[in-house]
């Protein structure tokens, strides 16, 4: 019997999506907070804090999308059509926001236009991703191998709520990043924004954690049946612990790395929570990871190259963050 590549691909894809959420999460978050910057100099600083790394971050989105197509094509063919409009809004917003980095600086006459393209584009892309997440957790209308619902079905009170929730979540990551990368007044404001976003995220995570088991008996059973309730209790307990630490870190003017660090841990636990709720389904209620998997030949052919190249990518990504470490200033980049 040949090696079962499905667990390996589940791990690769899970990591790729998680890296995307964390990395583009904080730079989209900086984009959301960009809407509240007061002067051109501040906007320059905010943009410079992510300018060298944003496109690398965004590449994880392509890898996540292609990874889903390659490893679980049936899930790709059902989920992506079901979230047709959120994906459209996300892509168009990312295009606008992406070109704004370059155009804002080369096209001074229309700087205000590109400022808005960047700020609103970041917020809209985030909201759209939150809607995708909510729609995914709720599941889709499926017959055979196709999504059979309508293109607007994905907009439900729950998915609109998760859209809003992700704005706070990415805002928290973004504010954490800015606390790390800026100083003085900008950092003080970032702390205020972090506190607000943290409270928003906390409320949102709480509501989602109550809402999903109430709406979905399978998820309730997963969390609250014995012995799961004992085995899984570290997830909510750790979330509470890191929440307290995050709150204290935001308030402590000496701690510059911790707000970002604990925000990342909180994201990891939320992500883990969703994975626990849904595993082993990749199309909730319809197809498991194994049922949606591509052929073993395909998974092996691509898997070998990926396992070789992925560490290279990770090492370089880490290195590029190291190169651009330290505080950022308005005059260091665009001038």
């Amino acid at each position, binding site marked *: 019997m040949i090696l079962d590549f499905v667990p390996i691909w589940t791990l690769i894809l899970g990591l790729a999506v998680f890296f995307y959420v964390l990395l583009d999460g904080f730079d989209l978050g900086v984009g959301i907070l960009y809407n509240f910057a007061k002067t051109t100099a501040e906007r320059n600083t905010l943009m410079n804090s992510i300018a060298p790394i944003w496109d690398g971050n965004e590449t994880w989105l392509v890898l996540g999308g292609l990874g889903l197509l390659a490893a679980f*094509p049936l899930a790709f063919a059902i989920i992506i059509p079901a979230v047709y409009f959120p994906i459209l809004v996300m892509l168009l917003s990312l295009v606008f926001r992406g070109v704004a980095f370059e155009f804002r600086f080369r096209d001074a006459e229309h700087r205000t236009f590109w400022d808005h393209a960047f700020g609103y584009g970041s917020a809209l892309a985030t909201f759209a991703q939150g809607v995708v997440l909510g729609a995914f957790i709720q599941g889709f209308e499926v017959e055979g191998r196709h*999504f059979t619902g*309508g293109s607007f079905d994905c907009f439900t009170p729950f998915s609109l709520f998760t859209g809003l929730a992700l704005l706070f979540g990415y805002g928290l990551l973004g504010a954490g990043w800015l606390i790390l990368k800026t100083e003085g007044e900008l950092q003080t404001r970032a702390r205020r924004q972090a506190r607000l976003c943290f409270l928003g995220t906390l409320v949102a995570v709480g509501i989602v954690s109550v809402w999903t088991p109430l709406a979905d008996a399978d998820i309730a059973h997963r969390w609250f049946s014995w012995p799961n309730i004992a085995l899984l209790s570290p997830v909510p307990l750790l979330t509470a612990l890191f929440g307290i630490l995050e709150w204290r870190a935001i308030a402590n003017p000496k701690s510059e790395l911790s707000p970002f660090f604990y925000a990342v841990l909180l994201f990891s636990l939320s992500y883990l929570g969703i994975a626990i709720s849904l595993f082993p389904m990749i199309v909730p209620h319809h197809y498991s990871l194994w049922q949606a998997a591509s052929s073993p030949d395909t998974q092996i052919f691509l898997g070998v190259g990926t396992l070789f190249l992925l560490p290279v990518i990770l090492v370089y990504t880490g290195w590029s963050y190291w190169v651009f470490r330290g505080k950022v200033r308005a005059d260091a980049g665009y001038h």
Partner: protein
Amino acid sequence: MTLDPLVLSRLQFAWVIAWHILLPALTIGLASYIALLEGIWFVTGKEIYFRVSGFWTRIFAVAFGMGVVSGVVMPFQFGTNWSRFSDATANIISPMLAYEGIMAFTLEAGFLGVLLFGRKLVPRWAHFAAAVLVAVGTLLSTFWILVTNSWMQTPAGYKIVNGIFYPTSWTEIIFSASFPYRFMHTVAAFYVTTGFVVMGVAAYLLRRKRSVAEARLMLSITLWLLTLMVPLQILLGDMQGLNTLHHQPAKLAAIEAHWNREARAPLALFAIPDQQAETNHYAIEVPLLGSLILTHDVNGVVPGLKDFPREDRAPVIIPFFAFRIMVGIGLLMLALVTVGLWLRLRRKLYESDWFLRALMWATPLGFIAVVAGWTTTEVGRQPWTVYGVMRTAHSVTPSLTGSDVLLSLLGYMTVYLIMFPAGLLMVRRIVRTGVSDDDDAPVGAGRPSAPVKPVPGDAS
């Protein structure tokens, strides 16, 4: 009029890919050109080559950044609008697309940063090496994308079980019958396109008497390269034509608007093909030339559209005219480089204002030819997504309504019609500045001109 989600989805794919392809057409050519300039600089040590490569690196950065954001859109199209195609063919095409993504990422992560920001920071050999590796990386991307496309044109190495494709031989899948010809023809097309952009910019600078030495150098090298590349490209195009005749006869018949199978076939220079009546109106034909060009034999047999059932024929008028636009531009380019060679031999190349003006007007020619050639091959493939095996009508996402796709198409049109003209303006601004000695002139792709330097003594 009812809105057909199939037709609109095809229009949407055509829209997003036609704009996207313009960027690789430039960046793939420029990457190799920059590597060449850096190579000459490394060997000869003449600073002028380094200045010229810096100038083109700035334009490369803008185009590359736009290529990234318009490229992110592409893989999602397979899911949003072509979910049945994705479901059926993913076992085969997804590794190709994913390898493209991973390799492009590795390349970008590893070497683009050095190329853009390392001009003063790394030794000469390292900068040259980065330029070469970026060029190799862009060619690898082209390789995987054209592997996918060629497999859709001439599928091989698969079996079908319950409507799903399964791989049987990766070698046959990767090196499908049309791949080598398509790959060479496409890369050559991108090189020629870039060549005419470089000559157009050089001509502009010469006429404005700006950065004259650098502009002469650009024009001189590029004209030599194109004197070789343009005839070679025509030869490669001919080889791909023979390949199409052999493997996709219905497509070839559509390209030539050729209805009846016959030997000693004429070549239609112009015609209005009539799909319903199965004939051409207002045809201007040259006797025997069809057989001679397509089969390299005046007595050669050329397939006709009537050999194939009506439902298996491409919409003739589109590939027919797209092909003629591409070939027409190819011949025009041949004329331009021939005149250029003649002027050079008479030592009047840099002084002939009319020729420089012609080169400026010729700047967009390659892009038009690339889009026309792409239209020829993709519309010529219709009505199939996987040629002869899977129909386009069976590939589209079943849940979409016409108004869904109309809405998304309008969205893509609006955003692209803002973004691409804006990008063109940025490039024009860089060109107008000319080649400067100032290495600190900003390079871009959304990055600062120099790495954001850490403040001393401030650990993060």
